[in-house]
């Protein structure tokens, strides 16, 4: 029978320690969660690991809990389970909204938060079959030496297109990592680097164990997520924006914004001023729209024009911020 996937061995650890040991034994391995990104890429010849370490059998990676420190999600928790969690839908609205618009339902039944945060970057010249890429002399990101999007540059411009990273970032999430040197906890925003060919700052052999989100006061905080995509289902974001609006006791308001799909990393929007009590909110929305337009950097990595993606994501940010502020005002 013809083999669709290249040959590999599947290792199925039952604990974090066993997964670390498996990776130490075979450092060229790749971690496998839902496989909805990795298996697709392997089918297209974009990865040929000799060993896959399946994270799904590790009980520690499969839980959602809440306590006084906030929300804790195991890395192998599926998008479906996260999106259906009543408390997440209520308090961490943006997280549930993002889960609902990732890929299709058959993907979400197995796709995980860890895989989503470690999603490979994407590009018109990269997410293609082997023969397509070969006929184009491959590209800087894999097997080639030129970026077809920005040929004079030396950096891969493929954008990060995961939907969960921005929503977790506006909620101030941290991630716990495990590796040969033990465990450490970092801010999610620090996981990413502006380099499409090497966008994750994981140490060699490290993986995400869990995601931790601080508690939310549902009375004073609203969050939401919106993405631009070609079709209303299945598609990756051409650009996506997460907004969190926090109303303080003195009446001032703070907007936190994070973006995806436009740069090689998801990032928190810089330079956003808090809105003083009584200040005209339209001025704040104008500022958000301009800051987004200025800080995103979409390239010709999709068939949709980069300029459109820039304007659309700025407009979506404005609309979302206005809706969240209105919702907070209504109580």
């Amino acid at each position, binding site marked *: 029978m013809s083999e*669709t996937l290249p040959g*590999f*061995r*599947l290792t199925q650890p039952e604990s974090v320690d066993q997964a670390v040991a498996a990776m130490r034994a075979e450092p060229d391995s790749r971690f496998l969660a839902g496989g909805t990104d990795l*298996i697709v890429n392997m089918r297209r010849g974009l990865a040929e690991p000799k060993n896959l370490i399946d994270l799904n059998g590790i009980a520690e990676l499969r839980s959602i809990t809440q306590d006084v420190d906030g929300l804790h999600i195991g890395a192998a928790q599926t998008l479906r389970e996260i999106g259906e969690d009543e408390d997440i839908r209520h308090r961490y609205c943006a997280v549930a909204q993002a889960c609902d618009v990732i890929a*299709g339902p058959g993907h979400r039944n197995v796709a995980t938060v860890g895989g989503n945060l470690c999603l490979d970057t994407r590009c018109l010249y990269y997410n293609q079959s082997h023969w397509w890429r070969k006929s184009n002399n491959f590209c800087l990101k894999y097997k080639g030496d030129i970026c077809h999007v920005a040929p004079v540059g030396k950096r891969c411009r493929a954008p990060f297109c995961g939907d969960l990273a921005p929503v977790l970032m506006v909620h101030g999430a941290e991630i716990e990592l495990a590796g040969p040197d033990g465990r450490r906890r970092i801010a999610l925003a620090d996981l990413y680097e502006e380099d499409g060919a090497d966008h994750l700052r994981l140490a060699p052999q490290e993986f995400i164990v869990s995601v931790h989100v601080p508690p939310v006061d549902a009375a004073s905080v609203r969050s939401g997520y919106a993405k631009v995509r070609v079709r209303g289902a*299945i598609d990756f974001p051409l650009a996506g924006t997460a907004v969190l609006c926090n109303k303080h006791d003195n009446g001032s308001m703070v907007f936190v914004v994070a973006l995806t799909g436009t740069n090689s990393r998801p990032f928190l929007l810089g330079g956003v001023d808090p809105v003083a009590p009584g200040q005209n909110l339209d001025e704040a929305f104008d500022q958000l729209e301009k800051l987004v337009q200025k800080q995103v950097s979409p390239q010709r990595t999709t068939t949709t024009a980069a300029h459109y993606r820039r304007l659309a994501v700025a407009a979506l940010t404005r609309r979302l911020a206005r809706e969240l502020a209105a919702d907070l005002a209504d109580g």
Partner: protein
Amino acid sequence: MPETTKRIISLTINGTRHEDAISDNLLLVDYLREDKRLTGTKQGCDGGECGACTVLVDGQSRISCITLAASCHGCDIHTIEGQAQNGRLSAVQRAFHEHLGTQCGFCTPGMIMAAEGLLRRSANPDDDEIRAALGGNLCRCTGYVKIIKSVRAAAEALQ
């Protein structure tokens, strides 16, 4: 080519128990179509984009062309072949037939399995729920309207 190990999996397909030696790199769609000769499940794209290969694993819709067969050890799998019982079409199959939810038929096994998965967890879905549940399944022929109508009719027939 790197070495691939083999393993024994045991699972249920359409109610019948199977035990097979398979390679770690075998995809569920290839296991079903080529090892088990259950060719009703279709392969319509080069991986994960069209939903033609949708089957139910433990009651949930799954994209079999990006699922490792090895990960289905101990699972309960349902494919289009298991829907008709004793020569009688299932309610979803009958509704697709009567309401013209199928034309060329290529997307139909995947559509029916995704619809079946929906109706097992939600007996009376509204159109939005039906659209969401079939959101990962593409059809080049029908324009979707008759597919939605067929699923609604199946839900009513099952009431």
